[in-house]
């Protein structure tokens, strides 16, 4: 009755009589009204395909989107992370106006470059130390700058100004400012401020 064959393309099970009767039975045809409808639909879809954008547009758009996104992400990653204000450092609003690049000393430029290259706090500290020594060597000629990183700006601002007028209003606040400068490693500036404190308040007992 049944004939089983091997292989994927051959019929593994078959009944000749059943198949023969089925062939006699299955004589229906698809309704002709559907033919015209479906062929028109096929033609319409093909026309729409032809009038659409070229086949390379979609992959190109994807590549452009991915590239643009990557560029934005990398650019954002390169931006410096804002750091909390260090104690005793002057606020950025008190920065003097920046002079032109031509007026900068070589020492300041080198310090700024090293500070910008410092990527973590540890290397930033090291860079600050190096910059501090260079700035200390040529402090008199150093103008302020605004295009350096926040740490550089803060340090240069401190180097330029030392204590503020409000710090100098009482011996206690002035002394506190001097201590902050010492903690920041600006010993030279702290000494200068201490000399000025002694002159301004000769009667005050200095520690």
């Amino acid at each position: 009755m049944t004939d089983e064959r091997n292989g994927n393309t051959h019929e593994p099970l078959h009944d000749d009589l059943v198949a023969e009767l089925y062939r006699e039975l299955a004589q229906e045809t698809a309704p002709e009204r559907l033919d015209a409808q479906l062929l028109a639909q096929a033609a319409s879809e093909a026309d729409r395909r032809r009038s659409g954008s070229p086949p390379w547009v979609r992959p190109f758009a994807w590549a452009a989107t991915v590239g643009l996104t990557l560029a934005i992400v990398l650019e954002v990653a390169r931006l410096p992370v804002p750091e909390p204000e260090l104690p005793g450092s002057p606020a950025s609003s008190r920065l003097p106006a920046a002079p032109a690049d031509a007026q900068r000393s070589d020492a300041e430029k080198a310090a700024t470059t090293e500070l910008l290259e410092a990527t973590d706090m540890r290397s930033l500290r090291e860079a600050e130390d190096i910059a501090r020594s260079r700035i200390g060597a040529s402090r008199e000629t150093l103008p302020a700058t605004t295009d350096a990183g926040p740490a550089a700006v803060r340090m240069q601002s401190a180097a330029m100004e030392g204590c503020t007028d409000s710090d100098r209003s009482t011996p206690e606040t002035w002394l506190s400012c001097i201590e902050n400068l010492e903690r920041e490693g600006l010993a030279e500036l702290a000494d200068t401020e201490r000399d000025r404190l002694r002159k301004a308040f000769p009667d005050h007992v200095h520690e």
Partner: protein
Amino acid sequence: MPVPCGPRLSKQAGVTYAALMERDSEDRALMLRYRDGDVGAFEVLYRRHKDAVYRYLLRLSRHPDTADDLFQDVWGKLIKARRRYRPTAKFATFLYRVAHNCFIDHVRRNRKHARPVTLDDDAIPDTAEAPDALTERALARRRLETALLTLPDEQRDVYLLHEQAGLGLDEISIVTGCKRETAKSRLRYALQKLRAAIDDATKMA
């Protein structure tokens, strides 16, 4: 069998299509040509397969109106899916997989309204012949038709894919999503039941 070439085919594309046809993939080549915008290729493909697909859907759904709806649905999906078409399997496998899935979706949508098929069901075809005029052959055909309609859906599906669509067991397992052995078992049961119905008719005659 020669396959008409579309006028818009470039020389390079023509060579590619010819290579595909040499590998006994005329249907796939036609579908690829339609994917590239050749409506004539689709018409050839449609006329080649439409009646078989219709009969498959007619016997699977057991109702001409449902078969019409499913038939439109199948070809409509094929038309819309042409851009995603990849010639990784036989075109018939692809086509009947779409048809099978359309039927499954239809069953799921209408599950609440499903009725068990009985011998008195309207869907069972009425032959023009009077009972006493039925020859042995005609009686056997009628018994086969009735037995086919009363087969479980899965067995009827596998039998139709085998007999009507001409698919092998591996292809049937792809279309229905069942294992090859399951398809084989369903086909064997279906054939046994159909054969038993014919034998009964022969005895009655």
